[in-house]
């Protein structure tokens, strides 16, 4: 287990290198460049800016410089906010995104797993259909509609919650609910499917035969393996959640990573985009490693080699 985890952590280095390299050339291949959207920069100033950031050097040289700096986590200043270091920008917004995504993930699991378990346990009854319909409501309303709808209801009609920004506990409620809504459906449906299969397994019958209570059989035995598909889904989903949802951050004016990526992309802020992408890739790989370790924990038959 430890050897496996160590090897996976070491493997992150070449993977991150591949991602960094592809992204480096990808952003530079896109048309336009930094400092082109500014109005009326004198050509001399633009040349000076380009030289200052080394963008006038040959591409290969830029790439080597970038790699050497990235290796020590120095990503340089942002082009569109020259007084800020990319590292600080990314870490600053990461806190906000972690909070938003972390809560959304918790809400999705807390609502989705019981709904899915209930549906599987009452398979093909009205309770099953009602639970699934409830879970589906979240995905059937796109989040760019759900967000404004919730604002309309809770902020502009009932005046219960602030409509936007990220300022106090109350301001967290609507963005978290909007972000979690779609994931509830995924979690609930994958839980239901997984549990339907494990409920018929021999080891569950054994647990029942031993005289264990139904609650214990379902929660401790059947659900344990029934959650495997949910766990697989959680790797990418968690990474996507905690690194920010572009739409939700936009709707509620939340200063998270998603907004940094969009701003970086539109301003051709190469360093900022690379920073966000590398950060996201790191998070994704950590979550995927955790997921693979969780398989072995949940299913004793799985061998990690």
């Amino acid at each position: 287990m430890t050897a496996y985890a160590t090897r996976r952590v070491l493997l992150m280095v070449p993977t991150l290198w591949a991602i960094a390299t592809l992204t480096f050339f990808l952003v530079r291949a896109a048309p336009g460049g930094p400092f082109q959207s500014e109005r009326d920069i004198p050509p001399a100033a633009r040349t000076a800016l380009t030289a200052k950031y080394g963008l006038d050097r040959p591409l290969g040289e830029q790439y080597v410089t970038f790699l050497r700096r990235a290796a020590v986590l120095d990503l340089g200043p942002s082009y569109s906010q020259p007084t800020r270091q990319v590292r600080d920008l990314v870490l600053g917004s990461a806190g906000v995104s972690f909070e938003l995504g972390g809560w959304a993930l918790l809400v999705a699991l807390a609502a989705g797993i019981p709904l899915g378990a209930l549906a599987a346990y009452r398979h093909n009854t009205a309770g099953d259909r009602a639970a699934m319909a409830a879970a589906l409501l979240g995905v059937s309303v796109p989040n760019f509609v759900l967000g404004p709808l919730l604002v309309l209801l809770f902020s502009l009609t009932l005046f219960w919650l602030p409509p936007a920004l990220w300022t106090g506990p109350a301001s967290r409620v609507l963005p978290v609910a909007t972000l979690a809504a779609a994931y509830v459906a995924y979690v609930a449906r994958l839980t239901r499917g997984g549990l339907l299969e494990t409920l018929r397994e021999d080891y569950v019958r054994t647990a029942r035969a031993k005289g264990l209570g139904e609650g214990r059989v379902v929660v401790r035995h059947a659900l344990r393996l029934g959650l495997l598909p949910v766990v697989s889904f959680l790797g990418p989903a968690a990474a996507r959640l905690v690194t920010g949802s572009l739409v939700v951050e936009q709707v509620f004016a939340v200063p998270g990573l998603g907004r940094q990526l969009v701003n970086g992309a539109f301003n051709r802020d190469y360093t900022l985009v690379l920073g966000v992408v590398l950060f996201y890739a790191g998070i994704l790989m950590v979550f995927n490693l955790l997921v693979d370790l969780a398989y072995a924990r949940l299913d004793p038959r799985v061998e990690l080699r």
Partner: protein
Amino acid sequence: MSPPGPRPASLWGDAWRRLRRNRLAVACGAFLLLLAALCAGAGALPGLPDPNAPDFALGASPPSWPHPFGTDPLGRDLLARVLHGGRVSLLVGLVATLVSLLVGVSYGAVAGYAGGKLDEAMMRFVDVLYSLPYLFLVILLLVFFAKSLVLLFVALGLVQWLTMARIVRGQVISLKQQTFVEAARALGAGAPRVVFSHLVPNTLGPVIVYATLTVPAVMLQEAFLSFLGLGVQPPDASWGVLVDEGRKLMTVFPWLVVFPGLALAGTLFALNFLGDGLRDALDPRSRGEAG
């Protein structure tokens, strides 16, 4: 390929028989087929107005007899726009799901069964694809190729299979230690046969669930890509685009978001109940159960 001796009831034949008995699933399947037929034949429907013909004198009007879904601010008939828009949306959903089924399932199953170095390499490749900034890929596609619907499918297909691959791989890793796999191998089944005839059918539960949820996700993503210039261009529209346009006028002309939204939600609900029926019908462990 099948072993000698009496031919066992095939997985698919069995499943089809069981699916037909599930009335909700059959009704949902019929609804989807009808919807697809209506959308595909929208151009030839008698009495349906041109979806792009404006009527400036009329403007935005609530649902009425000549315009059952109302009209948009340009006076275009919303029913016609929803039916025509359904073509792109349904096609996008279908193609993305096929890609995620064909590529994602085989990729994940092979990686999970092979294990070791091959699994490692295949999954790191998935991580790389996951992490690349999608926005730039789309911008690059737009720069190097002419705008077309095919390009939209390429952009969606590039990423749609990734999560599916991870889910199937996870299932296969857990399943491959089970006795039926050992039994299949002991009977002389080669790796491809073990993977595709024995393991993959056992992963179909989560696969179907995830595939049915992929459909609405890509329909909405198409709206985003259309906004960037990939996909449908005005005056044409898709459901995602119509919902997005309707959202902006939600407070004044609510029907503009309600009807395309209902089309999307109706498709989603029907797909999911059909998916549930399929899941139950295909579950290899319930074979022979109750007839």
